[in-house]
């Protein structure tokens, strides 16, 4: 994990409240469990068929009968439950997932999410991403602030096919946290330590100014 990744992962982890049921998208989000304090009360749901992710594999032989939605061998915690795909998505659509933490190609200021295809370039299929984006009670996107072309993750209007409209409530990058109320626009709410508001707005659309005072940046490590 790079220092920037660690910063954003720890800040994203701070959004998890005790007792929550959380689904993690593939990529960056899967790094979150490792930074949570030991014994933190959270249940991770994996759409391929379990609730109750255990601690990371420490050496030893991976058990390929227990994988996450990205296909990685993982462990189950005591009190975990396994289920089939139908039940798994019944839980998602039924409102049992409190928080989905996903990656994104683009997030619009209105909370639209595009994270499943780039026409003509990348057509991997949507997997379970649409259900999670649309039906988790809250959607948090974690992403590097700028892409390799220097463009910010937030856009006025998504140019790529949407995963779901108006679903993202929070975007956490290594520089800033943006948040919106249901039906509202994204606003800057917190800036990483040592950075300025200008750093936080780099590459992002206009009109993201904070409505009140900025919140202190609290990583999970300080809890």
């Amino acid at each position, binding site marked *: 994990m790079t220092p920037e990744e660690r910063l954003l992962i720890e800040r994203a982890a701070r959004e998890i409240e005790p007792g929550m049921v959380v689904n993690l998208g593939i990529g960056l989000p899967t790094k979150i469990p490792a930074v949570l304090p030991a014994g933190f009360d959270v249940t991770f749901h994996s759409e391929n068929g379990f609730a*109750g992710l255990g601690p990371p594999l420490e050496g030893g032989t991976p058990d390929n009968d227990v994988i996450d939605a990205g296909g990685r061998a993982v462990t*189950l915690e005591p*009190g975990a*439950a*396994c289920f089939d795909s139908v039940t798994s998505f*019944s839980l998602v659509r039924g*409102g049992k997932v409190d928080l989905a933490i996903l990656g994104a190609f683009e997030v619009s200021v209105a909370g639209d999410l595009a994270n499943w295809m780039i026409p003509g370039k990348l057509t991997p299929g949507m997997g379970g991403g649409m259900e999670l984006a649309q039906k988790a009670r809250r959607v948090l996107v974690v992403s590097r602030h700028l892409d390799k072309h220097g463009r910010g993750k937030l856009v006025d209007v998504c140019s790529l096919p949407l995963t779901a409209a108006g679903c993202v409530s929070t975007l956490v990058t290594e520089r800033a946290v943006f948040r919106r109320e249901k039906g509202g626009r994204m606003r800057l709410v917190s800036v990483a330590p040592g950075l300025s508001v200008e750093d936080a707005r780099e590459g992002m659309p206009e009109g993201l100014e904070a409505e009140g005072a900025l919140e202190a940046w609290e990583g999970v490590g300080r809890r």
Partner: protein
Amino acid sequence: MSKVSTVSGALRAAVKSGDTILVGGFGRGGVPFSCTEFLADHPDEFRDLTLVKNDANEPGLGIGAMFRNPGQVKKLISTHIGLNPEFIGQMNAKEIACELIPQGIFAEKLRAGGAGIPAFLHDIGMGTIVAEGKRTVDFDGRPWILESALRGDVGLLCADMADEKGNAWWRGTNRNMNVVMGMAARTVIVEAKQIVPVGTLRPEDVHLPGVCVTAVVPAGPRRHLQKLAADE
């Protein structure tokens, strides 16, 4: 972190007058008798309830005890009431409303409710009085009944085993409507014959995942059932 609570504590926290309550069980199997006894014993606290249950139990037993309290139950949604002549009398006297639904569709409506499916098509009861007045949708060249999902404010289940996280397991035929009701209610109380430490149930054996469950309470001595058995 443990979801273990008491019958009185969990019910008082969850149930409000006017609520729709999903009650597990089929006949005498898998019925949360301790919960229904507590509700029946406190008719002034819990009123105007709509009950959703496979059957009407027997007179004085399970929800049968609740029907005896005037004003506690305003409606029953069910599939079979034949073993409770007392309730049939109350239904015929229009003291308590009753909606009867074919059993598989009753289960499927709850399943849709729990699975976030607002409605589905089927043809059960088509051409019988059960289908009269129901909205139909043409699909694949013929009309089908458009059936709406059913959800509850509170689900009361009875499991044979549950752990402190709410993962639940049923023996034999006790599972019946319990699992689907555990998915279809906003707040779910599992009355467990045995409460076991986390890790006791194999993850593969869990019938209802704990993430659906709000509270686990111990099954009590089942006073009404004992009385009925003594009378028989």
